[in-house]
């Protein structure tokens, strides 16, 4: 038996067929276990998992607003501390406080709140499931949208190649907060992702994991390819997997030979406007980034 059998995210949710976010949540909760409280900012996950009177969550869960998951998690963590200290509740139990937010709720509107929570040193784990755009509202660009991706607010057109800015590097920004643990992970590598969640939860203080989540609807690929696309992102070096533990950087996966970025790009509709020359430029950009990480 490879994976824990515990299921804390129930079926019946309204996620798209092939939704990577749902897979990520299943994987997270398998390692986090029952003694976990989850907060989710507004976003796809929040919406598809809790249309009243139904919930898919089997752990205590709370949604407050779009831009404040970091602060909400801070409040929960502080309350647990107080309950332990003043009332003897949860005595000798480790209660995990996990925020699971999309890239919009994390890298954009929730960025300040997240930064505050990380800087203050709360014992929380923040997981960003990154589908590289505002999928909940219909594929608008976020600061996590990668270069050249076409979204509804950065559409490719006669004079536009889609998004004109490179992706914001959230993991490195979080690492700059000096938190004890930062990692990147991808839905397609469950062993790696689950090991990182487990490790993060064993560390006291603020932790951040950036998880890539290919989105069938937003990226434009058939639902069965969610895992394959994620794998391509990693194998091409578009999305390197690493962890930074107490400031020490370590690649956690090194492709035997990096695949051409073209394979990843051509598999998605959001990039279909790109010419071979465009992809060549992207390849160069990715090569440089990989070189920096020693990949």
């Amino acid at each position: 038996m490879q994976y824990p059998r515990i299921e804390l995210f129930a079926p019946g949710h309204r996620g798209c067929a092939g939704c990577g976010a749902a897979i990520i949540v299943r994987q997270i909760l398998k390692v986090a276990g029952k003694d976990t409280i989850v907060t989710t900012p507004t976003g796809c996950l929040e919406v598809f998992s809790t249309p009243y009177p139904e919930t898919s969550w089997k752990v205590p869960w709370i949604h407050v607003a779009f831009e404040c998951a970091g602060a909400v998690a801070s409040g929960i963590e502080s309350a647990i501390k107080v309950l332990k200290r003043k009332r003897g509740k949860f005595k000798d139990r480790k209660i995990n406080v996990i925020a699971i937010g999309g890239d919009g709720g994390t890298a954009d509107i929730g960025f300040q709140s997240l930064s505050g929570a990380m800087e203050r040193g709360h014992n929380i784990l923040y997981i960003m499931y990154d589908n590289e755009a505002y999928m909940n509202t219909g594929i608008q660009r976020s600061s996590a949208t990668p270069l050249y991706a076409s979204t509804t607010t950065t559409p490719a057109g006669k004079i536009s190649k889609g998004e004109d800015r490179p992706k914001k590097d959230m993991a490195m920004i979080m690492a700059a907060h000096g938190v004890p643990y930062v990692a990147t992970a991808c839905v397609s590598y469950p062993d790696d992702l689950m090991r990182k969640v487990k490790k993060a939860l064993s560390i006291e203080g603020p932790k951040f994991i950036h998880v890539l989540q290919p989105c069938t609807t937003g990226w434009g690929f058939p639902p069965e390819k969610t895992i394959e696309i994620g794998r391509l992102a990693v194998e091409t070096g578009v999305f390197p997997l690493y962890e930074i533990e107490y400031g020490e950087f370590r690649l956690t996966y090194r492709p035997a030979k990096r695949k051409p970025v073209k394979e990843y790009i051509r598999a998605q509709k959001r990039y279909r406007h790109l010419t071979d020359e465009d992809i060549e430029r992207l390849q160069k950009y990715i090569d440089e980034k990989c070189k920096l990480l020693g990949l």
Partner: protein
Amino acid sequence: MVNIAAIIYEPGNSVRNKTGGWRTFRPILDIKKCIKCEKCYIFCPEGAIQEDIDGNFIIDYDYCKGCLICEHECPVKAITRVREEK
């Protein structure tokens, strides 16, 4: 009656929402070919693939939305697709 603050007190009660009706294609798992690598299990967005008491993986068609990640990821082609027909 709506609960105070619309709090939901029944954990995981979305199970009453059977999403099997979403399917266009139905994955069929051939347990004879299955090598129990658990890929379909860990990659199913619905958690609709579970082990039965004999240790075989079975697909819960009440919830399977027919995304076919399982079919696509199966290393031994133990899962195949058929058109849903009414």
